[in-house]
């Protein structure tokens, strides 16, 4: 019994020592990435924004206080207090707005990110509680030159049921130094892309410099009949545009949709060589479709061959491959293009290029002319031989007569 008590005491002491040791060696790690911000070509009275990530390996949430220092301290806008813990890094957005009367030049400063205390005092001891701070160095270049630069990407459209709005969405990134109100034009074309059936223009949302934002525009479908349409979405200020396709569907109808995934052929081929052409199609809609590929091969401005495959039933989410062959007769660049037609719809046109080169010289190519030559020589020889024999025969006849 006494032995067990002694053992228990020993274990407890050991556990206590471990706890104390753990406490003494505990350390908090805090990090800031990136360590510097360099704001280039910020317009006087303009706006620029960047984001830093603050991370820690502390399970206990650490409060961080941000304080600006230096010549630019009054230009900065940021969250002054936030918490960060392990697995929950904080995205610190820092915006800079130089005053409108600021001369051009480079200005420095920093944002001091100070943590709350990691530990606390110990009874009867003199204790210095440690706090850490990280300095985010900031440089701002002020300019009076306006820069317009933006890009639009990620264009999307959703098919709509009769009467519902057609929703177009895309992202715009303003990489210039002035705020933009991008002008957006949407031209809606009929299925054959022959005539524009509707045009809408939008310009009501603003985007600040250095920011990215999603733009959503709605077009009424009341005046559009059921069917497939094409839409050219253009963001004029960004010189960006994209053609999309959408359907106006009957209420409750399943959507047919598909993608021409690829037109694949060899990069180069020789004259008179038969090359395979593989066309990939994927059914991305909600019902099975009967699909076929229709296209053409052009050589310069001239259509060399019309391509059309058999019809295949393609199940939902399945892919189909259409196989075709082509034998070029001339050296040059051939363009193979076409679309897949399905459920009274068509995919975007896709194309590929086949470069045709001259046949490499082979000894076998000499056989045919050689045979011709031998034939001619042989015929001439036979002709000569027969004439010679005939001459001999006549001479001998004459000789016999005399």
């Amino acid at each position, binding site marked *: 019994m006494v032995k067990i008590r002694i053992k228990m005491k020993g274990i407890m002491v050991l556990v206590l020592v471990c706890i104390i040791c753990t406490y003494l060696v505990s350390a908090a790690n*805090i*990090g800031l990435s990136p*360590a510097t911000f360099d704001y280039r070509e910020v317009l006087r009275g303009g706006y620029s924004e960047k984001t830093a990530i603050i*991370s820690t390996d502390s399970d206990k949430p650490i409060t961080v206080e941000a304080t600006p220092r230096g010549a630019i301290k009054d230009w900065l806008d940021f969250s002054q207090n936030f918490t960060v813990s392990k697995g929950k890094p904080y995205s610190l957005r820092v915006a800079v707005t130089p005053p409108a009367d600021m001369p051009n030049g480079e200005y420095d400063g920093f944002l001091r990110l100070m943590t709350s205390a990691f530990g606390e005092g110990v009874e009867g001891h*003199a*204790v*210095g509680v*440690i706090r850490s701070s990280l300095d985010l160095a900031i440089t701002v270049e002020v300019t009076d030159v306006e820069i317009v630069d933006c890009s639009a990407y990620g264009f999307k459209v959703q098919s709509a049921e009769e009467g519902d709005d057609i929703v177009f969405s895309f992202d715009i990134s303003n990489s210039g130094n002035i705020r933009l109100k991008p002008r957006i034009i949407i031209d809606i074309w009929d299925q054959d892309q022959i005539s524009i059936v509707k045009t809408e223009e939008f310009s009501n949302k603003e985007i600040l410099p250095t920011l990215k934002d999603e733009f959503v525009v709605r077009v009424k479908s009341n005046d559009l009949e059921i069917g497939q349409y094409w839409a050219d979405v253009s963001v004029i200020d960004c010189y960006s545009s994209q053609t999309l396709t959408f359907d106006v569907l009957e209420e409750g109808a399943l959507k047919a949709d598909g993608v021409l995934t690829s037109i694949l052929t060899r990069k180069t081929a020789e004259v008179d060589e038969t090359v395979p052409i593989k066309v990939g199609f994927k059914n991305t809609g909600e019902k099975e479709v009967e699909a076929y590929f229709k296209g053409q091969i052009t050589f310069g401005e001239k259509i060399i061959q019309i391509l059309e495959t058999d019809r295949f039933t393609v199940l939902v989410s399945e892919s189909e491959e259409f196989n075709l062959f082509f034998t070029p007769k001339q050296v040059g660049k051939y363009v193979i293009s076409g679309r897949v037609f399905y459920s009274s719809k068509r995919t975007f046109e896709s194309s590929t290029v086949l470069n045709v080169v001259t046949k490499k010289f082979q000894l076998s190519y000499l056989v045919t002319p050689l045979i011709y030559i031998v034939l001619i020589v*042989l015929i001439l020889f036979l002709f000569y031989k027969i004439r010679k024999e005939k001459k001999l025969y006549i001479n001998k006849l004459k000789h016999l007569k005399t």
Partner: protein
Amino acid sequence: MKMINSFEIISFSIFLVGIILIVFLLFLLFSSFLGAVIADVGENVTVISEMGIGKSPPIINYIDVEQGSVTLIANSTKVVNCSAEIIDYDTEIDIVNVSAEFFHSSSGYGSPNDNNDHYTNYTCYVDLSYGDVNTVLATCLFDIWFYANAGTWNCTVNVTDDFGFGVKDSNTTTIQSLLAISLPDIINYGTVNATYVSDEDPVNITNVGNVMLNLSLSGYAVTEGDGLAMNCSLGNSNISVNHEKYNSTTSNTSVMGLTDFDSTYVNLTGSPDVKEFNLNYRSNDTINYATNTTYWRIYVPLGVGGNCSGNIIFGASQAEGD
């Protein structure tokens, strides 16, 4: 009569040999057209065309590495995903292996692995359910350490198929700089009698980022800039900030009087005092040399007692030229 017969025989023989030769040569000439099928307009003709299509190598359609920017985590690893869309027009199951190397611009493809500048994933995860029967998505994950060099990194993906084709392609991303510091929670001077200097307490400062750092030190008792090192529960209540001192290079563990203390150690100040610490980041995968030790003591003046506590701020900033 005899003569006529011999001439006819010779002529006939020559003619026969000539005809045989001509037929043979014509056969040779047109043998390639023997299989041709001729049909009138409107008739159906079935032509059997045979062609062997060779194996085609896989194609790396695109590579994305964290959308062009990687932010590391202090004293930890960050999973970086280098994903590649691969197309094999034979069939996706032909893809035998996908591997990838992720390396800093100072390193190169095929260089040895080093947590600072080069990582390899020998077998990336290949998702066959992605896309159609010809397309896969290869996910190449790398655990990137906090001390990986900042700058431009390249992810090169290598795909091999069962026909022996090997295809390589690459894309780049930027690993951002990481300013990070590891410190203990407290400096515990223990129980110090009034008019005595405490024992020396070493404090390890570790660079847990990927940039060289400098350090600034300052202290306060209750509010920043109060000019005090500690606030105590008994007596005069305060210890001046000048009585807390440090030495950033040399340790001296001997018992010390106030005079030696003043001459050996540097005063802590109420406002940040930047030191050229130049503590570089970790560059050795096995041993961490990115730690410096500072040595601390405090003098407790007469009339102070009870529990004393204050705050010490260790400020890190990126060293110039890093």
